[in-house]
Structures are given as C-alpha cells and as structure tokens.
C-alpha cells in the first residue's frame, strides 16, 4: 500500500452498558435531574464515545481494524455493547506532515 493508495477514514465507536446491566453513573445522573427542576426523564444510560482515524487500503480494511479495536479494547463484551459510525474522510490529518 503506497501513501497515494491509502484512505484516511474517521470513525466513532459508541460504547454503552448492555441492557440489563445496572449503570450506576446513569442512575446518578438521573438522580440529579430533580435538582435542575427537570422531570419526565428516565432510563439514563452513560456510555463512552471514541473517535479515531484509520489509515488503510480501503474502507473495508479500515472497518476490519475498527471492529477489532471495538471488540477487543474499547468495549468489554461481557458488560458493554457498541456500534460503529462512519464519519467519512478524515480532517484530523490536516496539518500533519505528508
């Protein structure tokens, strides 16, 4: 793969507690809503969003990398689920040396 062939793609991995897993952070956020004078909000779940740029031969190859990262590092499959969002071409490489 030469530099000219490579694509730089930006992805987001959204990780959240699995259904049925108690989420103490979500519960704490929910508990604070009363202090804001807000009601009618329930089932708050707190997750994590990781955005990253992948340099690979093509989009399929980039997705393979993101899938692996999401499953092995960014989430713990026992307690968390994730989805992957394609954010399109990268802007994060702007300003980096060619």
């Amino acid at each position: 793969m030469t530099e000219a062939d490579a694509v730089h793609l930006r992805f987001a991995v959204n990780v959240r507690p699995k259904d049925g897993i108690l989420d103490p952070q979500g519960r704490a956020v929910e508990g604070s809503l009363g202090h804001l004078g807000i009601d009618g909000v329930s089932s708050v779940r707190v997750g994590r969003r990781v955005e990253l740029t992948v340099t690979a031969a093509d989009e399929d190859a980039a997705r393979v990398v993101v899938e692996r990262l999401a499953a092995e590092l960014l989430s713990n499959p026992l307690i968390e689920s994730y989805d992957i969002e394609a954010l399109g071409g990268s802007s994060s490489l702007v300003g980096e040396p060619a």
Partner: protein
Amino acid sequence: MSVRIGVTLFPGSNRDIDALNALEIAGAEPVVLWHERADLDGVAGVLVPGGFAYGDYLRAGVIARFSPIMRSVAAFAGNGGPVLGICNGFQVLTEAHLLPGALLRNRGLRFVSRQVAIAPERLDTAFTHLVGERRPLRMPVAHGEGAYFADDAELDELERTGGVLFRYVDPDTGERAGGEGDRANPNGSARAIAGVINAAGNVAGLMPHPETAVEAVLGSDDGLGIIRSFVESAAARSHGGAPAVVGAR
C-alpha cells in the same frame, strides 16, 4: 531456599510495595517485573498488585492487559503458573480473560476505603490451603470499581464448579453479606463475591487487600494465610514436587 515471586509494576501501580513486603514476610524472595519487559525473570509465581494501572483509562485494567509483561503472565498462567491478582490486579486478570466476570463501578457510586470481612468458600486451593480456622478474615478494601458481575448463568456455573473463592460476610455474625445496601457488601458485588478462582485452580483474584493485612501491629494479619498459601504453592510447583494441593476440579 526461598522462592522467587514476581510483582508486576505498571505506571499507576501503588500497592506494589505492600505486595513486596507481604511476600517477604511470607518467606518469598520478591522481585519487581517492569511492565515494558516481557521477561518473567524465572519467577515461580506472579502477583498483580493494586493501584490504578495506566490511570484506569478506558476501563480499569484493560490497558495493562496488552502490556508486554501481561502477555508473558498470560502465557505463564496458561502453563499452570500460579497468579494472584489483588484489587486492580483482579481487574487486570478479568480484562485479560484469565478470570471470569467483570468488576463494575461500585453500586453505591462511592470509592470505598475501609476494613471489611470476608470468608473463603474453599480451603483446598493454592491460595487458601494455609488460611486456617480464623473467621472472618478482616482486611481493607480501597476501590471505586469492585462490584463483581457476571450473568446469572455464569454465576450459577461458578457456584457449581467451585469458582467462588471468597465472599463478603458480616463482620459480627460471619454470615454471607446481602446485596446492595448491606454495609457488609462494600460494593454491591453479585452474590457477595469478593474473589474468584479459575477452573484450572492456578489463577485467583480478589478485591480486598490481604497484602496489607499481614502484621497484627498494623491492625490485622488475617491476610497472611492467603499470601503464604500462594507462596507455598508456587514453591512446591517450582521445586518439581507435587503441588501443595490439587487445584484442578
């Protein structure tokens, strides 16, 4: 003839000195295993100590899992080498899939740092055979993410196969702690589980700190039996003799 036991050291480990001290009291020759090295220095056992390895970023223990030293520890465990994880070390071992389950944020949301009481479920393991008769065992916890979790099917399987090694108990009555809301269960762990052991019997982890309860003058030496069991099992294995106990179930 003392046995060499390694203590892994990650950026953010903070109970390593306590671990080295406890191992020495238990008669071992402790050595530090730096996280960037893959060499286990010929140790007979590995203790993964408490702390906040790699700042607990992402999830407690997960980044340590991919360090060079942990890859070697995983291979060592795969060959039957005894490995004990304490607190953050327990989290590292679950993230590395060397132990079942996961440690979630404490149900009460607060970091809990105080003395608790636990009791071993089994005395026939490499980590408990020298624990003796004293009950309950008093030692501190100090963690924010110690609520043991596995789904019900896995918990049933753990109970059935003897995978539950320690439970939180009431310090006065010695009875098994309740769920969330029972002060005896400091973090809301499922089924009051404080520590588990793998199916092969050579890897164990617990959230409480036996390594800081090894000298009566400092409040409790109830943890020493656990550390001594681990050290003697490692010694028996490395000297080529029969293991001190048959760990496999």
